[in-house]
């Protein structure tokens, strides 16, 4: 194993075959004002895997995703999506934002929100046809929300709102799914429904990356972890990277004694 991995600058955009990483981030630095929240982070997502981004509060987990997608500007860094610049690969990505990021009193129905996922295909003036309606319906059915298609979004529970966001991502038919805390503030039934959908996506060969908070479920839900606390603190398959020393390095004193014991136990 070489101590330093040397990569030629132009190597990032290879536009190459199926082994190509769905998301590759190089030397990404993001700051809010004069405060860096993500510092020189490299990330390579394994194709067809489910990756959890974990780290303490304010560690830059969500920011890393948002910067990778161009939602917040990065100070420096480059992003390749399936070996291509982001702008040429947007149709391959579906993003599920944090539920709290939108106004749920906005005048729109569940089916309208999911239809927004088809904007890439409809464009400015494309007519909504039967096949589009069908797509919206099947996406809603996959998350168990087909009965709510005509509801105003404000009438939904938190878990249902999260499922609608997931349905919008499914409607896009993307190959890479980026989710920002999909399990935050949802009930157990919704968490189960969402994880089932995500596992199904992975089994279809799609790649899933999710910002995740609950350390106790990382092992059962995900294949890979990416540890971040401003800097990259570790990455790789669960059994190699999700270790007590790595977590202690990432969380510092913020990891409770009991948590450490439990994780050590889980690791066997």
């Amino acid at each position: 194993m070489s101590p330093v991995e040397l990569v030629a600058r132009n190597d990032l955009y290879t536009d190459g075959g199926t082994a190509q990483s769905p998301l590759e981030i190089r030397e990404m630095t993001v700051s809010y004002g004069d405060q860096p929240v993500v510092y020189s982070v490299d990330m390579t997502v394994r194709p067809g895997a489910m990756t959890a981004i974990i780290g303490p509060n304010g560690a830059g987990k969500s920011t890393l995703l948002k910067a990778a997608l161009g939602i917040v500007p990065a100070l420096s860094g480059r992003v390749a999506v399936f070996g291509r610049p982001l702008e040429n690969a947007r149709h391959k990505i579906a993003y599920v934002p944090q539920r709290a990021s939108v106004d749920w009193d906005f005048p729109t129905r569940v089916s309208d929100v999911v239809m927004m996922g088809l904007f890439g295909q409809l464009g400015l003036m494309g007519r909504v046809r039967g096949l589009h309606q069908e797509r919206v319906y099947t996406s809603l059915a996959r998350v168990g929300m087909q009965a709510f298609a005509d509801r105003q979004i404000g009438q939904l529970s938190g878990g249902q709102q999260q499922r609608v966001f997931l349905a919008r991502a499914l409607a896009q038919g993307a190959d890479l799914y980026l989710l920002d805390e999909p399990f935050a503030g949802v009930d157990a039934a919704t968490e189960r429904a969402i994880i089932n959908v995500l596992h199904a996506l992975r089994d279809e060969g799609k790649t899933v990356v999710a910002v995740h908070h609950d350390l106790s479920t990382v092992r059962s839900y995900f294949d890979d972890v990416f540890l971040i606390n401003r800097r990259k603190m570790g990455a790789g398959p669960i059994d190699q990277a999700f270790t007590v020393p790595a977590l202690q390095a990432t969380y510092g004193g913020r990891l409770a004694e009991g948590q450490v014991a439990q994780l050590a136990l889980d690791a066997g």
Partner: protein
Amino acid sequence: MLADALLLQLGYNATLVAFGATALGLAAGATGAFLFLRKRSLVSDAVSHATLPGLALAFLIMVAFGGDGRSLLGLMAGSAVSAATGLWCVSALTRHTRVPEDAAIGAVLSVFFGFGVVLLTVIQSVPSGRQAGLEGFLLGSTAGMLFTDAVIIALGGIVVLLAVAVLRRPLTIVAFDPGFGQTQGLRVARLDMALMLLVMAVTVVGLKIVGLILIVAMLIIPAVTARFWTNRASVVVILAGLFGGLAGYVGAATSASAPDLPTGPIIVLTSFVFFALSMAFAPERGVLAALMRHRRFERLVHLRQGLLAMAQGQHVYESRTRRLLRRQGFMRPDGVPTATGKNEAARTLRDEARWQVVRASVNLSDLAMRDDGLTPTEDVLTADQIAEIDRRLGPPEAV
């Protein structure tokens, strides 16, 4: 007289004004709907007030080049430039300093307007300025409207409407979820700029009819009116356009029916009438509907609590509950349950027991979310599910 006006029987000028006002109202309503959805209604206030100095400067420049300075196109161009400058100031202040947007709007709006008023005073002292009637642009003045003015206004309105139609999808997405819009390849900043350009166009087009102070009303009121009637953004936009157009038409016609009725303010008041009626009477979101819904809800709570108390053989103390129970024939005036009351109480108790089973059940947990203590299980469960639960519960208790 008003009927004549509404049927456009009041002569050439009134007809021109009515057509112009309708086109303006349609465009302003539809554009304002997106402003409202994006929660940036107040920005339009800064844009409109910032037109004044440009208007005055355009007049001075045209006079300096030997014109009479009253060309509507020239004045519109000048006001557009200064509105854009005002808008730029607001966004620069918000982006590069710690001044929040509402404060930036307040500062820019008043400074530009103040500067404009000073320029107007200067113009008043120039001989050719006195007859120019520039102060008519403050509140609109339709008395001397020309055919070409009406055509310019109508064309401007149509162009704005077309642009709104083309941009409706991206504007809606960005208003609801800008982060998601960005991932769809939409340039949020550019779309916001496009929306502001449309607002500016509406303002400039509307200067002649409603004037720069009241144009905000034509942008905002139709949108909030429309919101009472629908839960869909696309319908809000269409309804806002229709409300705006109708207010423009009715307002312009009304103001023509009596001498010295100012057109702009009458249009705004007409718009307000639509708003007030919608607020009161709209189904679902209107005030009356909400009031009735709440009364019904309270009645249901009282009845159910009363019936459950009766089922358990307790005395009902709450006077409103007793009144409701008596009115339903569930209770005699002396407080003793009637036969139907006993039946109903038993049914309610049964329903409550069924809900308990639903709440405790693993595979019905999705349905348990609909338990609000009021909805009967019959509305939520299938007949088979109820039969299954009843089998588990055994025969119902009599009251």
